[in-house]
């Protein structure tokens, strides 16, 4: 007989868009559709989703804890974004996890990847 006890003991981990630690640099900006948990860029003074791998990322958009639970977090008028420090970010699906400390890259849609996209890797 298979065991079921405490199969869900571990509370699922936090989703993307959470900052960890107390030494982060977190700024606030007007939001224009930037997605929580992904890198975003600036356009006309507002955070918008990345559109290309060539865009300059501004930072990781963080979850707003003060939003009502029924509000789409992507629709928040003001959002915090992390420019330096520890945060959780959506990742491009990979077959194996990168090593700790491995260099990461931002994909065209604001997620992170361990691949640079160059032939033969970086």
């Amino acid at each position: 007989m298979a065991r079921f006890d405490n199969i869900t003991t571990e509370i699922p981990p936090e989703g993307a868009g959470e900052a960890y630690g107390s030494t982060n640099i977190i700024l606030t900006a007007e939001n224009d559709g930037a997605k929580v948990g992904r890198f975003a860029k600036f356009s006309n003074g507002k955070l918008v989703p990345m559109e290309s791998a060539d865009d300059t990322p501004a930072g990781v958009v963080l979850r707003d804890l003060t939003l009502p639970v029924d509000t789409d977090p992507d629709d928040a008028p003001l959002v915090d974004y992390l420019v330096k420090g520890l945060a959780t970010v959506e990742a491009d699906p990979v077959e194996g996890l990168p090593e700790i400390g491995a260099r990461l890259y931002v994909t065209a849609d604001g997620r992170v990847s361990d691949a640079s996209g160059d032939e033969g890797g970086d």
Partner: protein
Amino acid sequence: MATHLVVNKSGDDGAYTTIAAAIAATTSGGVGDWSTITIDDDGMYDELIDFGALDYIKIIAADNCIIALTYALSPVTMGSTAPANIQFDVANGAKPVLAPAASQAEDLPLFAWGDTHAVDLLVNGWKFRPTAGTGWFIAEGKAPGSVLKLDSCEASDGPWTTDKILKLDKAVSLTVLDCNMENVETAEVFAQIGPETIVDIQRSGIEADTLLAIEGPTAGTGGELSVINNIFVLRDVDKVFLDLSDGVNATGGLIAHNIFACLDGPSTLVTAIKTPYNNVDVNNNIFMGLGTVGTIDGAVTVTANNNCVYDCNAGFVGNWAEAGTVTMDPKLGDDGDLEPDSPCIDAGVDIPTVTVDILGRPRPSPEGGKWDIGPWEFQHDDPDPDPDPDPDPDPDPEPEPEPGNEMINATFVREVAENVWLILVK
């Protein structure tokens, strides 16, 4: 105007040293502008949390704090003089605990509100761990229109009440997502609800004699029922675990991708499902070691597609429209996942609305494949079940993003969930 206060036992930077002091100093927030009280340390707080007439208040645990009061009262009360919207949330990956240590004479709820003023309560990421007393249960609020949502919560230790874990007689909705309630096994009933309560229970583990008990003098119009991707541990008792006969869920629902298992079994007593409705479908579930899988109350025909019935005394009894039933051993691994030779793999009926399994992994696997039976979706190694040597110009509706931006200086730290990484931005 909303306030944003911080609680820290050190009192550094003007922080309040008690939660009660912060509550006394805060004001009600508003829609889209909640007041917050952030508990910013891992201290132990022995105090009652009474929100009084406050509305739109959110308690945020930013560290692993413990609320371990020794009062023989409900630790958290709200909605005493007016309707209230209250949330308990977490930040920074904190795992806070509500752990009353009082020796009360009667059963007490951890969260309490009255019969008059509706409360909308969300609890996200908190652990419930009573350590003393004759019996605790999680929440009691009988005000019409109340809403309770438990997300990523865990009930551990005890003693838990032997009666009911949730008493929500006239609630408009009950939502339980990603919760571990496997340690409340002393409870007879998991949730007491009203005839019109909308119920949504997904990706959770619950052990009880009865999942839902309906409280009401007359049957209501019925709330919608969604019971999907759960682990239900049943005991060998002469009861119906999920009985819809008392007027609930007349508007329909779905009971899918769950496992109903009696681990003491095989049982000859317990019945998993009893329903009088033909609009509550029972699909892609695993039933193991039970007395009876399903019975029907009345002259209706109920759909039961592609379930696995194994080691049960009786299957679907009565006028079920049963199809695709698997009667072989589902072959569950020690962690519950389907073994590679499980007959439940790709044996479910297609349910496009169910897109993840109990662990949040995508359904079906591989994409475009068939749904598995049970809470776990077997993850095929090959993402493409039919590799086509013929180059297909069929454009991908969502083009694969192109990795490549090297303008950030970020490194990998660890994976915190599937396709969610903790990274260090330098």
